[in-house]
């Protein structure tokens, strides 16, 4: 009886088989092709890159030192920015609750109303806040009102989508219990469903508010109020030390709102 021929083991260990390696390299090559196609089709003027670092250094030196005496003038627009975010979020919550009931499969009346609910969600969410700003500036002319409606229009879909998902996952037993007392549809929603989705509603709203503070810092670029107007004007008039003050102020406000939002959300959950 012949002893079994010793199998040849490789001396060096590899994590992947050659086949796996090939697939990985193909993926990498595919990504590289996509990147090259995207960049080459953009017709980039590479000459701009040559002196970019000098330009950046030049810009930084023009900004320094920050012109702190400008700060009192931007307190007002900073508060406006927070107002735009807060009022917009408030309007959005009020509108989002009925939309959510419309877009949740277990509370919507029929297939048609569900489609309407879903269409509102998709339409609201796929247009950026700043683009909504463009539209509302055309309607209400430049100012904070346009900003408030822009924030509200974008946030409705965001908040309603998450509430609708929560409504679809509520405990059906409670709905049945309330219905068995003879409650009408609205009473069932109010007593059996709304309390169950309340934590999601509050959490989502506060989370969206903090995103909205960040968004409303740039709404001024299209004339929809807030600090963005001052930033845009300062940049266009090359008042770089003012620009730096505004950037620091935005940094402070956005970070504060983020910390506040995270703190409240950790308390309620």
């Amino acid at each position: 009886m012949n002893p079994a021929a010793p199998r040849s083991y490789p001396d060096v260990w590899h994590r992947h088989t050659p086949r796996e390696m090939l697939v990985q390299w193909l993926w990498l090559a595919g990504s590289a092709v996509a990147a090259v196609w995207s960049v080459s089709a953009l017709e980039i003027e590479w000459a701009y890159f040559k002196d970019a670092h000098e330009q950046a250094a030049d810009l930084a030196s023009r900004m320094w030192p920050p012109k702190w005496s400008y700060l009192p003038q931007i307190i007002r627009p900073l508060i406006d920015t927070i107002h735009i975010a807060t009022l917009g979020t408030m309007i959005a919550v009020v509108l989002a609750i009925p939309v959510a009931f419309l877009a949740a499969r277990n509370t919507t009346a029929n297939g048609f109303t569900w489609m309407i609910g879903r269409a509102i969600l998709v339409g609201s969410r796929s247009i950026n806040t700043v683009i909504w700003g463009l539209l509302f500036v055309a309607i209400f002319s430049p100012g904070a009102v346009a900003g408030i409606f822009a924030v509200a229009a974008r946030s409705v879909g965001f908040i309603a989508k998450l509430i609708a998902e929560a409504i679809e996952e509520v405990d059906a037993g409670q709905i049945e219990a309330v219905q068995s007392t003879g409650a009408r549809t609205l009473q069932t929603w109010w007593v059996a469903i709304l309390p169950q989705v309340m934590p999601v509603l509050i959490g989502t709203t506060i989370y969206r508010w903090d995103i909205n503070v960040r968004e409303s810092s740039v709404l001024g670029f299209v004339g929809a109020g807030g600090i963005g107007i001052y930033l845009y004007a300062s940049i266009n008039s090359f008042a770089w030390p003012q620009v730096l003050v505004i950037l620091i102020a935005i940094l402070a406000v956005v970070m504060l709102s983020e910390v506040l939002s995270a703190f409240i959300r950790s308390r309620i959950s």
Partner: protein
Amino acid sequence: MIDRAATAATYPGEWRAVSMFGSPGRRMAFWLVVGAYLVWAIGDLSINWDRVMRGFPRALDIFTRMVPPAVGNKWAILVKGMAESVQMAIASSLAGMVLAIPLGLCAARNLAPPPIYLAARGVIVVGRTFHELLIAIFFVKLFGFGPVAGLLTLALSSAIFLAKMLAEDIENMKPGPVEAVRATGASFGQVVYYAVTPQVVVRTLGVFIYRLDANLRHSTVLGIVGAGGIGATLASSFSRYDFDFACAILLTIAAMVAFGEWFSDWARRMIR
């Protein structure tokens, strides 16, 4: 002996749902705070109500001029703008991913030494604060108008976002494999390749696809400050009161974003 009449009298005749505020006093206080805020904020913004009221009929007018959407002879502009947005999104996501790997490794507490960790976290915190449009203005100042500024903006913000998610995944990974690979005498690069990568690659790919979708959305607005993509066309169609073309652009954006969302959901389900 129980006094039946007295017991019955202490119950309300009508049932009311339990208030989520806990007590009527707290409910009152909540609505008072909301009311006071509304009065303060609306008074503070010095809103011109006359102009707002004139806005509502104008909204109807704009709406009637938007419907039906029309492109006319501007198909070339629309297609070129959309293509530029898509290309910016793809190229910037890939560039962002490449940049995010070193930044993410530096921002993971369990891999990087404290000074590097703090520096990387600082970059992430500051970078996340600024809106993409705000970053875009600066790149427009540095590189001139055009898609380069948008590409760099999205690459930077994607790198920061992806690095943050990657760092969190690395911090949450199991320490066992890292220790085992280290015990064989592996270098830092080998530890990353053999112990860290297998644990985080699937989630990171998911986040990357999500970011690709997010970049597609962002790439449609950057044109407003001159950083390339469809946004410039949209902004100019609004300022020229060319509302039916604006509506056509909005619908195209909505369709593309919806497609992007569907694709991202599908792709993330595939890799799981």
